């Protein structure tokens, strides 16, 4: 029976994938962690791997190992390869899949064994639908980070660590790397989010949202367009299918139209509130409460009302 391989350039995700691998591994199916230039092979054994393929090469870019991993996989014939769905992981997985002539499911939200292959679930149409798909073996599946809890480490567990020297594809060279500065709090952990959409006319007006967020003790987020087209807020603040998925108690949007890709990112919010001038904006279909109105009028009134409600001594009675 072919093995299950797991790989991510992020070792924390590799541990999560090992938990998935173990849950799918029947008795005769080994779970093998693939690590590139990693140092903690024994830690991966303790986290559930039967064996570690420790690939060594001189190129720091994981994608440059696509051919090497495909060659190894062609030789060892694993039945399944689970790859962490980071951007680089998705790139690598697609290149390996092409070389192996294998099926690849991107960002599966569920994986199970079925009829001698795999059955997976993933989002379609911007998050509007869930597609159940079957994949023939050998199958490659990318898995979003944090989808599985890593197994508690089993101290002293032994397993084989096989060092593999790999040739890399060095045609793409990285000339410079610019690391993003982190700004503000972590929006994925925020309990209240005020979200800015294209209804805002200019950058300075963000303060209207910031004041409302302050009154609610929350964070400011935005749509993809506000981050990527307007560059008003960093990418780490945009909410949606390809951005952050958030799960606050309260999500309150101002001037957000509510494209399906954005709504896919707020699905797990306990309460969704929308303010938009257009009563037909799709965000209202996704909202618990809404106000059809101009955010420039509504948001300051709301801020004021919340401040009054919070001020001691002003409560009637």
């Amino acid at each position, binding site marked *: 029976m072919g093995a299950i391989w797991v790989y991510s350039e992020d070792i924390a995700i590799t541990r999560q994938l090992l938990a998935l691998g173990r849950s799918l591994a029947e008795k005769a199916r080994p779970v093998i962690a693939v690590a590139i230039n990693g140092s903690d092979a024994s830690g991966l054994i303790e986290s559930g791997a039967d064996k570690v393929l420790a690939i060594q090469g001189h190129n720091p870019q994981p994608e440059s190992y696509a051919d090497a991993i495909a060659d190894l996989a062609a030789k060892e014939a694993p039945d399944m390869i689970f790859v962490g769905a980071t951007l680089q992981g998705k790139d690598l997985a*697609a290149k390996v899949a092409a070389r192996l002539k294998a099926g690849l499911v991107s960002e599966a939200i569920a994986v199970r064994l079925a009829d001698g292959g795999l059955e997976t679930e993933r989002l379609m149409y*911007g998050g509007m639908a*869930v597609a159940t798909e079957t994949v023939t073996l050998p199958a490659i599946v990318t898995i979003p980070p944090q989808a599985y809890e890593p197994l508690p480490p089993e101290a002293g567990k032994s397993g084989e660590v096989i060092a593999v020297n790999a040739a890399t594809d060095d045609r793409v060279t990285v000339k410079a790397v610019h690391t993003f500065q982190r700004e503000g709090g972590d929006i994925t952990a925020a309990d209240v989010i005020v979200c800015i959409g294209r209804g805002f006319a200019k950058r300075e007006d963000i303060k209207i949202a910031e004041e409302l967020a302050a009154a609610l003790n929350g964070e400011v987020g935005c749509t993809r367009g506000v981050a990527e087209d307007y560059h008003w807020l960093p990418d780490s603040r945009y909410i949606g299918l390809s951005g952050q998925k958030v799960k606050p108690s*309260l999500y309150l949007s101002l001037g957000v139209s509510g494209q399906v890709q954005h709504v896919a990112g707020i699905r797990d919010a306990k309460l969704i509130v929308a303010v938009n001038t257009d009563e037909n904006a799709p965000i209202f279909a996704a*909202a618990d409460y809404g106000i059809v109105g101009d955010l420039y009028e509504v948001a300051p*009134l709301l801020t004021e009302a919340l401040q009054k409600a919070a001020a001691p001594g002003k409560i009637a009675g």
Partner: protein
Amino acid sequence: MLNIIVCYKWVLDEQDIKVNPERLDLDTSRAKYKISDYDKNALEEAVLLAEKYGGKVSALTFGPEGAKQSLKDALSRGPERAFIVKDNLALTADAFVTANVLAAAIRRIGEYDLILCGEGAADTYAQQVGPRLAALLGIPGITFVNSIGLDSGQLLATRKLKSCTQETAAPLPALVTVLPEINQPRIPSLKQVLGAAKKPVTEISLASLELAAEDLVPRVRLKALKGYAMNRKHIIFGGAAPAEAVAKLVASLGKEGVI
């Protein structure tokens, strides 16, 4: 002179799809087709690069019968010519099959320096075909790019990853997948729309690509598609008095216990 091929997909406009809240099936009866949004950025970037460095842009799509309607829109966005592999196999093709077909079509088209794809398709958003194509064609593939330039025949591309940007360089020919932020796709003018009708379109039959039967068998097959419905309250306050609506909202939020 740069020979650029842009691959695009003709997809259902997901913004017009409705989910039946009881049965959770999808109502696509009112949805029109469109060129996948991210591919519009790829088309635009190809045309901008050709304008800047001199070159020729070809558009390529693999789609079912209806995809023929996309050609005029694609050509009105600036490419000089278009190629279509029209076959209903596209309806069940996974990224494995699609990449095989596109790679064979690209080999048929012949010379190229640069291949551009969007970051993913608007319907499946699987983000596979670009990097798969690069691997099949044996050329460098650079994904998630928000800026492209050329320097002494070398491709310069800035990739945007989660926590950093990478300035990369690669020899041509190469393949790049572009992020939406790379440009603002044009809205074709009437002149461009009319001009598109005169541009050459070549239909490449699937059979003529002589792909092995095995390369046309999808590895991933759709078993079921279910709409995602959220149970929300849909209580909307409107009317002429914003202060009143705000008061009602604050009262509701208080009852919900979130303020």
